[in-house]
């Protein structure tokens, strides 16, 4: 039936089908359902999706198990773990902001050179010359402040619900490390616009590090690559900000997520 209706189209497409025979299944005209059925049976489709549309328990299970991103999750979870007033999605939101910062950060890198003679003008250009440059910079800045806040709030949530208790002790420690790394990521990014605000904020911040007992001046020198905030400091902060610290955060995030699963999923209260 479908093949008959598609007669004329078939003739026109014979040449193409002889080159790629499986395309025939995709182009035959029939009802929408038939089309869909045929599409999902093609080699191309089946190479992308290993299971059917996720509208049955079986396919939904396979969809989560067979996807590298979704398989961070278990296939099933306790109903109580869905309660938004328990987690407030704070860990997930922190991760979302980290991803937004990565995307906007990579785009900002196209327009920014970490040189004391160029950096400030590059930021000015973002505001006035680059299409959506101002928007991009704003988004990076507000997401960064947002991440400091949500990571801290996430820590408060975990503390006040007692979710740090065994067997999750070590994941709490990893979380505290991630909070510290978030502060450092934000701080190293703060210098990059090379304006008065950033310059003096980092001068104040690194002076504080210089007060460490015994090795303070050495730590300060190591951070700045000199005795004051200058070209070396800008390059060090930039390198730490765009690659060093993000890599470290990514490693600890992987451990953090993995341990959530290995410690029995997110904590929930008592029997349901």
């Amino acid at each position, binding site marked *: 039936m479908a093949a008959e209706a598609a007669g004329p189209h078939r003739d026109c497409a014979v040449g193409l089908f002889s080159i790629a025979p499986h395309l025939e299944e995709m182009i035959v005209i029939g009802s929408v359902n038939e089309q869909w059925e045929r599409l999902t049976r093609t080699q191309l489709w089946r190479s992308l999706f290993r299971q059917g549309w996720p509208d049955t328990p079986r396919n939904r299970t396979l969809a989560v198990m067979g996807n590298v991103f979704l398989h961070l999750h278990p296939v099933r979870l306790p109903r109580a773990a869905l309660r938004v007033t328990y987690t407030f999605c704070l860990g997930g939101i922190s991760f979302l902001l980290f991803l937004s910062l990565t995307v906007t950060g990579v785009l900002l890198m196209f327009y920014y050179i970490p040189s004391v003679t160029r950096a400030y003008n590059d930021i000015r250009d973002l505001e006035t010359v680059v299409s959506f440059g101002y928007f991009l910079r704003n988004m990076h800045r507000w997401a960064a402040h947002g991440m400091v806040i949500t990571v801290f709030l996430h820590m408060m949530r975990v503390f006040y619900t007692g979710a740090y*208790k065994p067997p999750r002790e070590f994941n709490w420690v990893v979380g505290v490390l991630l909070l510290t790394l978030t502060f450092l990521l934000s701080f190293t990014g703060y210098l990059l616009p090379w304006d008065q605000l950033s310059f003096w904020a980092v001068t104040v911040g690194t002076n504080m590090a210089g007060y460490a007992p015994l090795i303070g001046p050495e730590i300060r020198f190591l951070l700045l690559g000199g005795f004051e905030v200058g070209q070396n400091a800008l390059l060090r902060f930039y390198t730490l900000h765009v690659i060093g610290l993000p890599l470290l955060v990514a490693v600890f995030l992987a451990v953090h997520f993995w341990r959530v699963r290995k410690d029995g999923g997110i904590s929930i209260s008592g029997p349901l």
Partner: protein
Amino acid sequence: MQTQQTGITQRRPAAVVREQGATKVERQPQNTVLVWPNLLAIEFLAAALITLGLIILSWVIGAPLEEHANPDITPNPSKAPWYFLNLQELLLHMHPSLAGVIVPGVAILMLMAVPYVDHVVGDTGRWFASENGPRIAGISAVYATVWLVALIIFDEYVGTRRVLESIGIPEVIISIVVPVAVMIGLSWLLVILIRPMQPNAREILIALFTGFVAVYVVLTIIGTAFRGPGMHLFWPWAMPPRH
């Protein structure tokens, strides 16, 4: 070859089996739901809302940009990023090593130690542990805020240093011993204060953690909005311009 000659059977481990599995499951799977679509729908909605909020915020409010950095012109006041202003505020009241490194370092270590101090399972997943919990957190937040504001005002208008120097107290006591004594003493006093409620380890930690969060937040707010030229106290609406 040598083994055969001496008649000793060489043994090698075939497999290592843990007494406890790497995966610790606390309860049987009961009353569970599928992640697709139940959890994924919530995550998608949360992600969409946050992304929308971020886009609107970035559309409406611009990131600050001042003049080109100039090492010769020091703005008064020069402030650290807002999340470090709590430490900069501490800097006004104690030895810089304490304020800038030791206090934050000890705070991070104490945070990491939390699950090793309170490791009793049973009340996992319950907000504020018990009926006493919210009350303890409330008392602690008020206690910490009132003491902190009082101490900051005292130091600004009377001056611990001025008072102690005038009676010949040595520097090490003024900038190290007194601040450490105040921090430990007030924490200890808080624990004494809630003792009639017969708190367990978790509830004592709730008191101390809430005190820490309150101090962190109030110091940040004071450092951000109430400190002006010379790092003196001003009302936010009467703040002199930076120069």
